[in-house]
């Protein structure tokens, strides 16, 4: 294992993040605050409680998920797409490293960034609502898994994308709708029965539900399903990365 190389990639990517620290951290803080003002204060004042939790607090896990998932994807996909775009990928390919080490470096950095953003949002939320996290260890473990698997997914998108439009395509057309419709701002029990069934096909529901369980001890679906969902998603992404590694798909001619 070329640990120096993994560290070099990790540090290099983290430097990019810190170079734009204000934009990187400020924008999620601002957008989260806006969500709290709009959903928590304006709409939330009319919705009393959801499953025994104040609405303002209820949306916190969903809000964290929304930012963490989109940030993990955009950081990881940009991280590997940019060297492809400007041509510096040659250096990665000609270095004495294997694809796994490249993945660990890039995905590790993207996941770290997403995790930091998640923590910052959690801290911001404390200023708006009272939060009492019931399973803090499980919450952290869930958060780390989400950061890792969505960074992995973002990495795959970055490898696949051939232009900036494609880079935006999946986050915009797939992830954001799935997260919004995945119960970020509501409990799926609030939906009509037919839509509840449809919603169960949305994998993000299981992730948000599990994450919310770690906060409040209540969930839309059983926690076991949530754990299985994140494990399957992680395994699928690993499998795809392994395939890319075997075939050199879109990185090596």
């Amino acid at each position, binding site marked *: 294992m*070329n*640990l*120096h*190389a993994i*560290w*070099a*990639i990790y*540090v*290099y990517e983290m*430097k*990019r993040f810190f*170079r734009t620290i204000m934009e990187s951290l400020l924008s999620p803080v601002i957008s989260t605050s806006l969500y709290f003002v709009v959903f928590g204060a304006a709409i939330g004042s009319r919705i009393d409680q959801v499953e025994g939790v104040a609405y303002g607090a209820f949306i916190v896990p969903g809000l964290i998920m929304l930012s963490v998932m989109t940030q993990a994807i955009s950081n990881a996909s940009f991280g590997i797409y*940019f*060297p492809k775009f*400007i*041509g*510096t990928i*040659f*250096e*990665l*390919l*000609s*270095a*004495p*490293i294997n694809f796994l080490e490249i993945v660990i470096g890039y995905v590790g950095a993207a996941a770290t960034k997403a995790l930091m953003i998640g923590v910052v949002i959690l801290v911001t939320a404390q200023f708006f609502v009272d939060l009492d996290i019931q399973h803090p260890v499980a919450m952290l473990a869930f958060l780390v898994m989400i950061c890792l698997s969505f960074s992995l997914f973002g990495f795959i998108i970055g490898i696949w994308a051939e232009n900036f439009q494609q880079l935006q395509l999946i986050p915009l057309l797939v992830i954001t709708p799935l997260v919004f419709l995945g119960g970020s701002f509501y409990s799926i029990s609030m939906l009509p029965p037919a839509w509840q069934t449809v919603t169960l096909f949305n994998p993000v529901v299981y992730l948000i539900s599990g994450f919310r369980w770690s906060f409040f001890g209540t969930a839309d679906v059983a926690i076991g399903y949530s754990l299985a969902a994140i494990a399957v998603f992680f395994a699928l992404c690993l499998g795809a990365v392994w395939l890319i590694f075997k075939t*050199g798909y879109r990185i*090596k*001619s």
Partner: protein
Amino acid sequence: MAVIVSVDDLKKVYKGGFEALRGVSLSIEEGEILALLGPNGAGKTTLISALCGITTPTGGTATIGGHDIVSDYRAARAMVGLVPQELALEPFEKVINTVRFSRGLFGKPHDAALIERILRQLSLWDKRNNRIRELSGGMKRRVLIAKALCHEPRVLFLDEPTAGVDVELRRDMWQVVEGLKAEGVTIILTTHYIEEAEAIADRIAVINKGEILLVENKADLMARMGRKTLRIDLSGPLDRVPETLRDYDLELAEDGHALKYHYDTRGDGTGITRLLQALAQEGLSLRDIETRQSSLEEIFVGLVHEDTP
């Protein structure tokens, strides 16, 4: 001298069926400068890319320092530095950071003294905290060289190092290459500037259409293949080549004030003695005589031309 890079029947067929390398075999000795000469699309960059791990060869084998480039890629690549043709650098990064990154990528621990020495050698030390986008094209090229050198490679591939670089910087670059050679680094450079190969290479390999046409010591190549031209300045002008001199391959130049005689140094006799006697018999008065060796460029054009039906 020991062979450091050995290429055996290396092939590369791209997905569309294009054969970029058609069984290239080549041995490169430690410490030499080999110029890989060829027209655009000859396979120069593909060969380098295959040796450095950027493209996967579809046939044949190659070793660097005895390590197979596929099965023992870590050891092989650790010995190699690559300066690509494109100025591929991250524009927002600082010079020193991008060089540190390269060293780490090659599995080496940080070495501030070494990086300082390399940056000073390439006149980049004063620019170390500049962002790449603030640098000129020539400086960017130097940053690429610094990145390639910072992990102390034994073999350096320079892909068109002076493409689009002004004359002064080109000579600077040649000096850098000479300096590296003095340190024992083996250098393989691709170029289509014949002048460059002529100026700095020890050996020259000519590649065209994915095949190596020849590999030869530069001086031997020029001596062996060199056609020479004898130019004879006449005291008075001629309106045509005299009948008695028809057997010689002569052409009239300078409005009849000079004759040019082409001959081959490879032959048993050059025919110069007989020609000079014939000129005397014809009663021509000579003002000056000059011989000129054909340049590598002419040799190269000749070779590639022969290869193209």
